[in-house]
């Protein structure tokens, strides 16, 4: 940084602005205030040599540089490069950059039962069951939370790690780090108790590019498993009954009666099986099963058995398995293939349900060949009942980067419009309309970010739009889409560390939601007929506002705490994207100009106020210094466009719906008008009454005074008598003699040349530190001592001694003989030495 500032000094006539000196001074200022962090925990404002109109540095030319960039994208010669590790990140994102230390919704545990609790939920559950109130419980809770932090760090580093494995590793690390044997023992005890209460295990899923995909698969497989579990018993019993028919027939057959079979069946040797066989052959137990029936049952059972793994829990939905006659794996990027696969799958499923129905009829002996043969001969998918259809595993289509590079939109819409319950998951890792190199790149949000809106227009597709930062919405939306009896489309912005290199993936994904570039919503046509039933935008932050915002805290150069309200807009998102470097410029603080305006404020300006103003995004650079990043007008256009889209989404989500607002305003105006009339009426009535009463009263008073005057004669009316001045009571003065006596005694005692304080007697009243906080400081017990006798004047010492309520400051002798008014001060100091 120093280097850039140095070069700017050479090329611009910055005269007296010596940046390195400023920097030096700032560093000193910070270290002198020991409470200020120097590690950049709280961002610091750079020193500000504000450019003044007509000053030595030409403010007009600085503004013209800024405008040149804003309007034409031409960068001044002193731009601070903003790339690589030195990249500035938007100010609102700054506090969250150390993501692993913050409790958040990742990692998620993919439990065996299809549940997807977050690590935080699991840990909270464990803690609430083993950490009672009180000291022991509190210690346990702390230990368990330490473990959570450690597991979170580990899961970031270990893709695919299971909770139990990471738990063990984290436990090992913590035990190794324990400072003493006592602490180690209590830590071990806490973790063992927590472990005993841990009821779940599974892979821990951190926020990665494939997280949405993994979560989708887990949620869908879990939903399917739960659905099948309810039906499994009925299905098993049906198969068993059908089997029993065949088994009974088998046991009556000649084969079953032969001695060998009988021996094998009973497993004994004490019997004469030949004889038994002869006896059995003579007995008559009914006709054997007609061949056609036996064959029909057998065929049905065979068909059922082929598909059975799908329902008996041996095959998870979406797994590759050779046990099934069709491929369960999701189709990638090819929508037409999904249609074909669906046809094939439905054909097989129709066969399966046909076999089930036959088995059902057979097992209750209701199959009538005359009617049923014909019915089942033509049985196909159109004969399936709604319940049967719901047990046909839907085809899942996954669209990823490859699809968005060469999109088959016709195929996609044909697929979704066909009405078959296909489930589509689109993983999006780029929200921009271009790659930064094309002609007008930043001004267009990419169409994939609007794809969900287009699909919603089909009106019968369940749509979920969210980013990976909203796992709860993802799980909910995925499950609802899967359960919905029709096509479902889920689109997820996964975040992208290639385009936003400075941000953790989670934050990039969250920023997409927060900036309204990719607002979260759920459209569920199964919930009702109106938009109010179907559409929900509630998962967005501050749904009622144009932009979400927060307070950004930083410190001024002098260490003062400051805050400013900032909004998070698409410009913040773009500024974090390395590809759009041409559209933002981190301005050297030496060139900050009063014409710069925060973007969200700039957007509120009236058109006539805009010329001469340059919008910027507040950011924080890698040194923890507040930065201003000016953006081009294309970025501003993008922000405006996104604001309009968001407005549209608010309306469809029922937030400040303009139709409703207009109606309410009209109704309110009508009511107010009616009320005003009513009030006027009442006022008129009462003011008439009032005037009449006042008139009566005045008349009465005048009459009474007149009659009194007449009756009392011409005596002077009683005048107000001024109250006698009360002599001020003598203030209860404390015995001044006593004080003086004590002081005189002190005077005779030993005097010291150096000032000192009887620190243990200090009552921390702030009097002296308020006079000079370099001369007087508080110690660890918050009691005052002389920190630096040279940091203040003798006058400071004497004044403090006089002010000190417990008289414990002893000013000593003056250090500087040239101090003004010293004679007087020495005299004043005497009582305190």
């Amino acid at each position, binding site marked *: 940084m120093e280097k850039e500032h140095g070069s700017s000094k050479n090329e611009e006539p910055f005269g007296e602005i010596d940046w390195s000196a400023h920097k030096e001074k700032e560093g000193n200022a910070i270290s002198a205030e020991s409470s200020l962090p120097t590690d950049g925990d709280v961002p610091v404002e750079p020193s500000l040599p504000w450019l003044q109109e007509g000053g030595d540095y030409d403010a007009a030319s600085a503004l013209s540089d800024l405008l040149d960039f804003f309007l034409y994208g031409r960068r001044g010669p002193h731009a601070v490069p903003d790339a690589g590790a030195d990249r500035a990140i938007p100010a609102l994102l700054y506090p969250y950059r150390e993501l692993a230390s913050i409790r958040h919704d990742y990692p998620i545990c993919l439990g065996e039962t299809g549940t997807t609790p977050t690590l935080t939920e699991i840990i909270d559950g464990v803690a609430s069951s083993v950490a009672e109130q009180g000291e022991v419980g509190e210690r346990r809770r702390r230990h368990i939370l330490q473990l959570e932090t450690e597991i979170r760090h580990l899961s970031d580093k270990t893709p695919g790690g299971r909770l139990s494995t990471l738990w063990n590793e984290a436990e090992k690390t913590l035990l190794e780090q324990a400072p003493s044997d006592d602490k180690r023992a209590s830590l071990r005890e806490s973790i063992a108790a927590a472990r005993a209460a841990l009821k779940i295990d599974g892979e821990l899923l951190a926020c990665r590019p494939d997280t949405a995909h993994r979560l989708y698969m887990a949620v869908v497989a879990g939903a399917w498993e739960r659905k099948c579990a309810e039906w499994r018993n009925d299905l098993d019993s049906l198969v068993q009954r059908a089997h029993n028919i065949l088994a009974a027939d088998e046991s009556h057959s000649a084969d079953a009666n032969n001695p060998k079979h009988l021996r094998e069946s009973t497993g004994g040797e004490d019997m004469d099986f030949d004889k038994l066989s002869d006896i059995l052959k003579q007995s008559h137990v009914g006709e054997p099963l007609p061949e056609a029936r036996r064959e029909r049952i057998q065929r049905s059972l065979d068909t059922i058995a082929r598909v059975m793994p799908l329902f008996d829990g041996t095959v998870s939905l979406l797994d590759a398995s050779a046990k099934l006659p069709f491929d369960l794996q999701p189709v990638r990027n090819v929508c037409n293939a999904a249609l074909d696969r669906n046809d094939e799958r439905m054909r097989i499923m129709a066969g399966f349900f046909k076999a089930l129905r036959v088995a059902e009829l057979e097992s209750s002996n209701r199959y009538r060949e005359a009617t049923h043969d014909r019915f089942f001969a033509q049985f196909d998918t159109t004969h399936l009942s709604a319940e049967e259809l719901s047990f046909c595993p839907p085809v899942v289509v996954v669209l990823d980067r490859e699809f968005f590079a060469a999109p088959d939109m016709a195929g996609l819409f044909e697929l979704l419009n066909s009405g078959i319950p296909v489930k589509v998951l689109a993983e999006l890792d780029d929200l921009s309309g271009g790659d930064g190199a094309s002609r007008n790149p930043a001004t267009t949000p990419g169409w994939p970010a609007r794809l969900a809106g287009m699909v919603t227009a089909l009106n019968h597709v369940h749509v979920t739009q969210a980013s990976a930062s909203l796992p709860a919405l993802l799980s909910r939306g995925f499950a609802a889409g899967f359960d919905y009896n029709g096509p479902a489309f889920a689109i997820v912005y996964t975040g992208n560390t290639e385009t936003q290199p400075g941000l953790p993936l989670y934050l990039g994904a969250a920023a997409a939601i927060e900036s309204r570039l990719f607002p979260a919503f759920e459209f569920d046509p199964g919930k009702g007929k109106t938009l109010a039933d179907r559409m929900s935008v509630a998962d967005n932050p501050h749904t009622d506002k144009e932009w979400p915002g927060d307070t950004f805290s930083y410190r001024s150069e002098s260490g003062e705490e400051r805050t400013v309200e900032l909004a998070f807009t698409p410009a913040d998102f773009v500024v974090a994207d390395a590809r759009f470097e041409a559209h933002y410029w981190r301005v050297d603080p030496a060139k900050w100009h009063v014409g710069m305006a925060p973007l969200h404020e700039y957007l509120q300006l009236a058109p006539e106020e805009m010329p001469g103003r340059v919008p910027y995004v507040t950011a924080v650079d890698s040194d923890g210094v507040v930065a201003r990043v000016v953006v081009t007008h294309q970025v501003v256009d993008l922000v405006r466009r996104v604001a309009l889209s968001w407005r549209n989404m608010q309306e469809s989500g029922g937030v400040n719906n303009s139709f409703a607002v207009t109606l309410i305003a009209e109704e309110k105006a009508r009511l107010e008008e009616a009320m005003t009339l009513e009030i006027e009426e009442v006022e008129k009535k009462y003011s008439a009454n009032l005037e009449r009463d006042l008139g009566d009263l005045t008349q009465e008073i005048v009459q009474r005074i007149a009659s009194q005057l007449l009756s009392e004669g011409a005596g002077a009316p009683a005048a107000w008598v001024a109250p006698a001045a009360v002599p001020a009571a003598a203030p209860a003065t404390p015995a001044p003699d006593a004080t003086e006596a004590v002081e005189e005694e002190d005077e005779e005692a030993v005097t010291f040349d150096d000032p000192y304080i009887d620190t243990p007697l200090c009552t921390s009243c702030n009097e002296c530190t308020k006079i000079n906080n370099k001369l007087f400081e508080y110690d660890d017990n918050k*009691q005052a001592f002389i920190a630096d006798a040279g940091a203040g004047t003798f006058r400071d010492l004497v004044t403090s001694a006089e002010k000190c309520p417990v008289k414990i400051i002893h000013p000593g002798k003056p250090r500087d003989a040239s101090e003004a008014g010293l004679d007087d001060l020495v005299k004043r100091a005497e009582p305190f030495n």
Partner: protein
Amino acid sequence: MFGLKNECTLNTDEEYKTVEDYQGRLARWCPGCGDNGILTAVQKLCRDEQLPPEKTVFVSGIGCAARFPHYMNTYGYHGLHGRALPTAMGVKIRRPDLHVFVNMGDGDCCSIGTAHWIHTIRMNPDLLVMLHDNNIYGLTKMQVSPTTPIGHKTNTTPHGSQLKALNPLTTTLGVTNASFVAQVPEWMPELLFDVIEQGYHHKGLAFIRILQRCPHFMPTLWDSLLSDPNNTVLLRHENGMNVSETLEKVYKNNEIHDPSNLHRAREIAEWDDKVPVGILYRNETIPCYNELKRPERMPSWEQRETVLNRAFDRFGMDPNA
């Protein structure tokens, strides 16, 4: 934002906390105000005991002293005038794991809050109660308080207060079940800290009357004590306040007083001419109301949420209505 709360950063290291860690907002009492010294003593207590800030609550009513919770980096409840004690007792009953402190001024405690004062003493919950007694209403700019000395002029008694001041010590000692009663001035930091510390360790309600200067409205109130050490009587006993040798040399007026002697404590509290400093009475055997009323089972989080929501709904307003 971003689905995150940066204040949720997990910082579970068991760190040693300094006095500064207990400092909340910058104290805005007048320079020279005795409240500053009380604040420091309490912060030192928190540090020495290493009280977890999240397990510590300061409850106050209204007045200068009631600003106390703002200046502690712990939980706090700046409540209604005179109602600090019932609030604190509620906290203690439902959350016996918390360390609960109460800060009241003389107006707050001895005037509008008198009924609560009397009954809370009798209930003897496990609280540390500090009465910041500067004998005046300071926050509202000098009106008479129950402890204002007779003859003192205030805005509401321009001809001087006509009643003899209420004595908080005799009042407290007169209430059934009083279990810890002490008096200490804030300008003797060593004793202030010692008494507060002993009060903190007392099981039951520790009532400490702290004589406090108000440099603005009562600048000369304690002059007799500040100028002549002989007007202060240190109550000393092996079960009482600890006094350092340095103080011993200055404050020569001592009385050996056994804090278990309630009768003598009441006599001492009656003194008009001298000011006793120390622990007047202490009895650890009196049962605490918060233990008698301790819930058998803590409510579940769901139950708490339901109850809270019900309470909030009573006052909730639809912002769009």
